[in-house]
């Protein structure tokens, strides 16, 4: 599963990259209610049971790809840490599962990709927690 995630990370770091490129890679459109609501995709990626693509409201470029992992696709916070470096826990409200964020170095010259992972629960150490969904957020690199 980590290979799929790393591949998506590299793919989303590309420039140029259009919404159509992401659709071709991830899966066909199921529902597109218009930005800022995400496009719902039918993913063809291994280990991914749902996918949504957000667009930048001003220019329509891909902003964030969120994937929900299939029950059998196990990846832990520790595995992501090996791939993307140290993480920080994000603030989450009462009743929501914990979330962590990684800021891996940019692999392209135009875009950085932050990796945001939703974990299963706060019951045990975050490192050992399975990831339930993952958002890859594209930010333009500073000029």
């Amino acid at each position, binding site marked *: 599963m980590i290979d799929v995630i790393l591949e998506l990370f590299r793919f989303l770091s590309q420039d140029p990259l259009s919404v159509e490129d992401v659709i071709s890679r991830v899966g066909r459109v199921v529902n597109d209610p218009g930005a800022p*609501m995400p496009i719902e995709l039918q993913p063809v990626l291994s280990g991914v049971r749902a996918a949504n693509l957000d667009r930048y409201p001003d220019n329509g470029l891909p902003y964030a790809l969120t994937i929900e992992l299939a029950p059998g696709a196990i990846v832990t916070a520790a595995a992501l840490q090996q791939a993307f470096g140290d993480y920080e826990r994000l603030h989450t*409200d009462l009743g*929501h599962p914990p979330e962590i964020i990684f*800021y891996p170095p940019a692999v392209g010259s135009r875009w950085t990709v932050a990796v945001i992972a939703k974990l299963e629960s*706060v019951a045990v150490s975050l490192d050992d927690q399975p990831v339930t969904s993952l*958002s890859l*957020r594209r930010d333009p690199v500073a000029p």
Partner: protein
Amino acid sequence: MLSLLRRNIGNSWRKYGTKVTPGADDMSGENLTLVRTKRQRQGGSEFTDNTAQIHVKGRKLTKAQIVKALDAMNRSIARAKEIEQLLDKKTPAVEIARYMQQKPGAQPDLTGVGEKGILAGFAAAMTRTQILWPKISLNNRLKLIEWDVNKALKLAKVPNLCSFKAEKMDGVAGYFQSALWKFGINKDFVLGSTLSDDAAAELCDTGMHESRHAEQRFLAACYYAGQNPKISAYAVAQKLHIPISIAQAAVANKFNATTNPKVAARGKKMYDAFVTNGKDNQKISDDCYSALLKVKSAQIEANKAKDAFNANPTSATYADVKTKDDNLKKAIAEFDLSYKKYRNIEYEKEAHEVGALAALAFKQRSVGLPAIAMGPPSQESRYD
């Protein structure tokens, strides 16, 4: 995760603090004849079995003592159910009721999305949404809500949402995720064929509660950006865990000597709550949720003990009822303590207040409080 959300939004939601009448919770069984009397309908149990022999420490209990114990357990279970619902209702109804007792217009006029005009405008827009609701698609219902949330944010000079999504959620009404600048709303909100007054008030509460969280995060970023004139948007983005586009807006609006002192003070307060004391505050939320799960678990055990007593009222099953009731009471007391701490976290205190005032603005919309117009979309044709 617990499945706590009321599935039929607007359809007889149980209110926090209201008396729960016995239904499925009635003590009934083969050996106990329970007649639904006026006393029962008011929440009490009536033990009419004169043959049951219940002994505690060698002494036979009277019927009145048994009834008292059963009543106590029913009250604990009812309270546990109210606690479960604290997640799906942003503001307990008793708190909104407290505001309702005040004279219309007497409520506090807060800054940002908490301004009276913005709240009244959002409530007025929700009335328009309520009218259009049965005639429009699910996507267009969402578009209306998103439009009004973004309009309120814009009026409060907060960057618009980068993402807005209806999702299946267990037990919660919505959330704001700063890392994606996203408002997630429980899909159940938009599935009903009509939008009842209660559901619309709840949408106002959730919409403005989460908008307040967006505003708080932005103010914290503006405050942080103002601490160092040369700070980059990237540094702000990583410190506050927000997208670059939002950090750039914060740098452009960084606090300085001309910033409204009230707003500047809020920015510092929110920075402290999210960053300086962020880990401690997150632990309060986590502990509160753990306490809620313990209440749920103790409630399940209490119900099992009650069922066992109903099926076979003996001294042993009675003793188990008492033990499980004590455990449930202890779990409730622990939850009450942690919930109080949670509600006192600066960002939650503010967001709950704004959410409650938005719900109130909707409930008092007929009073005609001055409202800032949310503007289009007002043409029904765009949303049919």
